[in-house]
């Protein structure tokens, strides 16, 4: 896929497009801070943020319809190991750790994957999801075949109704929302169940063409985004306010709670925001290969680069 024609506007700003993975949420705070606080403009960029962009964001980035996209580590691995690999690279991890996990009603007393037996799990029905469940249940000595998997109809405990027992959610979003609604829930982070599952989610990607032919733009973009996230880490309240301008329909109190949680998580255990490690990529790639999700492994260097994190 070739690069889209770059329109350079009269004010000298370079126009680029970013496709989100999902509707704007606290995972994206730094990006919106950069947008609203003028960091992008300071770095000579005009960024069009496109949402909600399904997981086709990866393809759109690969073919050059968008210069940047937000997606998941797993998606990058799929894309890089496809029979015709997509020419993309991860260039930043938004959060250092996997902040997702399994939620269930407290009264069901589901404490470990062992208790998943005989329960109903609702998800988005990706093969990787099944693999993760298999792995964590096997790790706890449970029989995966005793779990019923169905498609989720929404997110959070409310959408689970009486039929569903377990769902996989982001701690910083649905879990906080549920708790604020006064639901009594059990939360079980996946990263505690298998160290390989502490992968990056979400990540920012760009295409190889940009890296080779226009690294200045990528650098400028990443500098602005990093600045945005650093701001969010330092002042969660102000950052949440900026995000609230973007999604005014979302309850401010909830947003604040969510932001406070994530601001602590963005660069936890890392020198600087965005940096990625080979072991995380290799670990999850290994995991995917082991469970037959991909038919060969590739080295981490084929999947990400830290070169734009300065």
């Amino acid at each position, binding site marked *: 896929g070739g690069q*889209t024609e770059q329109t350079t506007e009269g004010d000298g700003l370079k126009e680029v497009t970013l496709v989100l993975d999902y509707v704007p949420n606290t995972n994206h705070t730094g990006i919106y801070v950069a947008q609203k606080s003028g960091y992008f403009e300071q770095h000579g960029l005009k960024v069009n*943020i496109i949402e909600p962009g*399904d997981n086709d964001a990866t393809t*759109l980035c690969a073919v050059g319809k968008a210069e940047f996209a937000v997606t998941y580590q797993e998606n990058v691995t799929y894309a890089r190991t496809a029979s015709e690999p997509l020419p993309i690279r991860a260039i930043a991890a938004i959060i250092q750790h996997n902040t997702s996990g399994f939620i269930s009603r407290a009264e069901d007393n589901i404490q470990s994957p062992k208790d998943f037996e005989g329960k109903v799990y609702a998800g988005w029905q990706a093969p990787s999801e099944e693999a993760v469940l298999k792995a964590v249940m096997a790790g706890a000595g449970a029989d995966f075949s005793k779990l019923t998997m169905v498609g989720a109809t929404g997110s959070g405990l409310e959408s689970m*109704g009486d039929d569903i027992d377990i769902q996989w959610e982001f701690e910083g979003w649905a879990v906080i929302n549920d708790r604020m609604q006064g639901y009594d829930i059990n939360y079980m982070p996946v990263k505690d169940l298998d160290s390989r599952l502490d992968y990056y989610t979400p990540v920012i990607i760009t295409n190889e063409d940009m890296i080779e032919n226009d690294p200045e733009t990528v650098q400028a973009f990443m500098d602005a985004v990093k600045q945005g996230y650093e701001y969010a880490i330092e002042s969660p309240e102000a950052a949440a306010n900026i995000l609230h301008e973007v999604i005014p*329909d979302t309850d401010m109190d909830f947003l604040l709670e969510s932001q406070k949680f994530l601001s602590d998580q963005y660069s936890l255990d890392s020198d600087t925001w965005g940096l990625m490690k080979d072991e995380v990529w290799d670990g999850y790639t290994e995991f995917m290969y082991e469970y037959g999700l991909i038919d060969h492994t590739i080295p981490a260097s084929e999947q990400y680069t830290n070169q734009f994190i300065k």
Partner: protein
Amino acid sequence: MKRYQQYIMPVLCLIVVLAVWEFSVQFFGIDLYVLPAPSDIVKAIGSEFGTLWMHSMVTLQEAVIGLLIATVLAILIAILMDLNRTFRHSVFPYLVVSQTVPVMVLGPLFTMWLGFGLAPKILMVVFMCFFPIAIAFSDALQHVNRNQINLLRSFGANLLQQYLYVKIPTAAPALFSGLKVSATYCIGGAIVGEWLSASAGLGYYMIRVKNGFLMDKVFACVIMIIIWSLLLNFAVTLLERILFPYTRKRKGVS
């Protein structure tokens, strides 16, 4: 008196349904996240009207442009199919086939080809609205009275005149019923387009509020979609009455 009855019944029905709904939500304490009460929805429409209106305009623009393009295309293709059997045989099967392709597969392709602007949404509307119009119109053109055409031919009417005097008036009611179906679907088409990628529009807004667990606003969106769809349908009906007064007169008689 009769007119009065014609309007009183649907309204009565609506009131009963809404009352039962409201009562159930209140009585069984159904959560907002599961099903909002009608009163919640009305409140949401009231408080968010400005936002809803703004997004409506975006969606409406996509829908109307798409509908217009679809109509023009459908009329052209139907007439071409009527003029040329070979063309008909070559094109018709693929019209039918095109309708069986799931939108989910096409949407991303449209975005890939046309980017993130209005174009892919309009294309989606065209794709969804084209078929009912083309089928209804070309079908009606096939069933034009041969004798009437013969009469016109014997009067020396050229092809254009045969269309203007007989074929189009004969097929107009069918064209308009196809158009009414499409007018009902076109907002839906724009919404689907907006789900794929957008930065404004009712579909965009709906996903946002849905992810914010705001079901009252989701239903407020649905109400807006319904209202706009009905208004478009009504506009088509009005257009038909203006362009083809005969149909109205006839209906008035029977």
